[in-house]
């Protein structure tokens, strides 16, 4: 997904709107100011958009995988003191099905990433309740399936959206042993 970052003037100061994107997303800037700017050294003329930028850092300074979410700063290389921030979240994706759970455990994470809170549709199966993964470990944000007296194999539809607008619409199968 390409996220637009507006460059605008507020009370005489230039503002780069903060952005929240996912790992697979890119950003670009739209310059609503009357002067050129260069966020991260990328030229953007007035009333124009910039080239696209994949914000997740690569290279030796930040070996992959980058622990996410994380916020990063950047500077305008034309104007000292002008800066912005980009927060990067893991992609909101279903875990590869089929999943497995061994009793007595009753919880299995069925989707990871994205930004809480999530809007989660009921699974349609009485034995499966879908809830947010507890927030204590935000790096593993996502959705858990909590099982109650499940059959040996259960399949249901996972439909959910996260706070960034990401969506999952996927069949999930869990094998219980």
């Amino acid at each position, binding site marked *: 997904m390409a996220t637009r970052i507006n460059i605008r003037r507020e009370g005489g100061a230039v503002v780069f709107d903060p952005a929240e994107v996912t790992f*697979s997303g890119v950003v670009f800037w739209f310059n609503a100011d009357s002067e050129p700017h260069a966020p991260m050294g*990328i030229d953007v003329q007035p*009333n124009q958009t910039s080239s696209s930028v994949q914000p997740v*850092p690569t290279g030796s300074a930040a070996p992959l995988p980058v622990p996410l979410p994380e916020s*990063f700063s950047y500077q305008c290389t034309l104007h000292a003191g002008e800066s912005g921030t980009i927060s990067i979240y893991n992609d909101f994706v279903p875990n590869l099905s089929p999943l497995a759970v061994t009793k007595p455990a009753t919880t299995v994470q069925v989707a990871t990433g994205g930004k809480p809170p999530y809007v989660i549709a009921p699974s*349609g199966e009485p034995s499966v309740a879908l809830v947010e993964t507890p927030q204590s470990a935000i790096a593993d944000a996502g959705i858990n399936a909590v099982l109650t007296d499940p059959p040996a194999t259960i*399949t*249901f539809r996972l439909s959910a959206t996260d706070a960034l607008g990401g969506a999952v619409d996927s069949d999930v199968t869990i094998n219980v042993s």
Partner: protein
Amino acid sequence: MQVRTALPILVLYAASMHAQTGSPPFVNPGEIASHDGKLQAVIVVSDTDRVVPNVGKVHLRFFQGWDAKGWDGTQPAVKVPANPAAFSPGPTLRAKAGDKVEIMFLNTTDDANFPNTVAAGKCDQAFGTKKDANGNLVNVPIYPLADQYPNCFHASSTANLHFHGTHTTPDALGDNVLIEVMPVKDTTPQKWNAVFKKIFAMPTIPTKWQELPGEYRDEQERLLKAKGQQYWDTNAKQIALGQFPQYIAGAFPNAFILPNCATQDGCQYKALQSPGTHWYHAHKHGSTALHSLNGLAGAFIIEGTYDDFLKTFYHFGATYGPDFEKVFVFQEINPEQNLHRNIINFGAGKAGSATGPGPGQVLVNGLVAPTLTMRPGAVQLWRIVNATPGSAFNGGGGGIISPSFFQTAGFTFEQTAKDGVQFSQKNFSDQPFISNQFPNGYNQPAGLMVAGGNRVDVLVKAPAAKGTYAFASQGATVLWVKVDGDPNDMPLPDRTKASDWPAIPWYLTNLQQPPTADRPLPLSGPYPHYVSFSWDAESNRAVAAAPAAPAGKGTAGFPPKWTIDNRQFAEFGPLIDQCMPLNGLQDWVLENHTTVMHSFHIHINPFQVVSVETPVQTTDAQGVPTVTYKTYTPAGDPIWQDVVSLPAGLAMPLTGSPTLTQGFAPGRVTIRHQFVDFTGTFVLHCHILGHEDRGMMQLVRIVPLDRFPTDCQAAIPHHH
């Protein structure tokens, strides 16, 4: 010959699949149909937030349209699709052979919502990031690297329409992909309605810019000068040379005839529009792949004698029954080009997955694995369009509908047409694709495969056993069919009875062996005419040098430089790459000098596939590895197509073949085609659209015989 039919045990297996909880119901895309000999429509490309299944809200360009018959210029009562926020293909267009097509095409894209969208004569730029010493992000160039304008991704807010599969004029208001309709975000169809009505009402469709009404030309000049004087200056030069101008601002009138005659006697055409499943999509060089990934495509169904037969066979009357004709538009959706990002970001680790958000997610009419319902024993006509960019790069080919789809246990399949051209009686009887005669050109199991740009029509008969059946492509379920309700045992045409399938129309009879004198330029060159698909083939590189694997993008040789006949599109300046006299009848040998597949497509006239030669690794009598060719020649009639997959070449130790060079055995397809009815300039290209955007395209020109070859290189369009 057997058409694939399920064994009972497989029926039980397939039907035991779990109910596809939450799978949306299959629906045909919305439709705009012709009336009284005219397909009158407004098609708008605009942009909005769309909800893409399994991805979420994405800002994309989209097609929306409406029936313009009797439209008074006010807000239309019905738009197709009604709700662009829900992802779907563009409206299906439905016409009859012989109809006149009148389409007001508008581009109201707001280019402030997209990066890299200005047609400024340069490649897109894209960056990654790294942290500097202070922990701030700074840019790292990702694209264009070695790509050079115009053979690079660029100018994606410009657009046009290609009517893929139509036999019509390639120039002026016809199937003209050499124009660039630039966005004017605040323009409206109401503004253009009066002048477009005047254009469409002209007794002869304009073929020159000067023939268009002055108010249209004046407004175009005003709008283009407002965008930049250079755009109008370019147009003015082209108009002075007698060309149709390159740049259009906001609104373009597509107007052309779909040729038809009641009988051959007295017909003004040598070939007619083949009735069948065709499609339309944006075709701006440098943006075709991204436009496809944004969903800018729709089906274009042209009805004729083929449909008359089917409707009569099934006793439908004038129209297909509501549960009979199903239109499938396969698409992959992504807001960005793959090369605009570091390789690490392909699908966020879900590359090639049919359920993931990255490249490889295949949608059917905008839906992930929808459920189509059939009654036990019922027959449906499935019209299938592969509107994906056709890439087989990411995880094995999300852009291909694989043979497994047509091998679903329990169902019986009879293919009736390929690329919008009906089968002959012999081919309908033989079923050369489903019965594994025709090699599919890709590294796929044998069977019917649908590459990017291909269409197939298939009669599908449901099993008698109720159940839910999974239709898989590339290892993932892309469709569920629920067989339910009261039995409705419908017949399939009996392939052993000639009366159960219509004879091929006169204009689709087999092309005869061409006279050797009837050859393209240079007249002294080898014949049949060779067209070579290659990579990195400029003089200082080895023809068969495969690029390194993309473990770390930016490696020398990756991404490869795609070429045809050792040059990229317009690489050395304006050039008509292929020039033929009107009515020329020629054999071309399409060679694939790479180790990946390519799909050859040529506009305006379909071709017949005479042979397919697939190189196969083998061992000679001395135990030395070598290459032989597995050759397909039609047992029946050569099949008409407009996209054909070229088998990958093999780099191997070779002995003894005069056609093999540098230890490399190219894949090879021989086609026969005739360039009839329409002079003009158009293109051929690889229908893996990222290859086309990045150079794998040529200009083709048909000139009157008395102007051949004089006019071949005259006034060449400069359309990038």
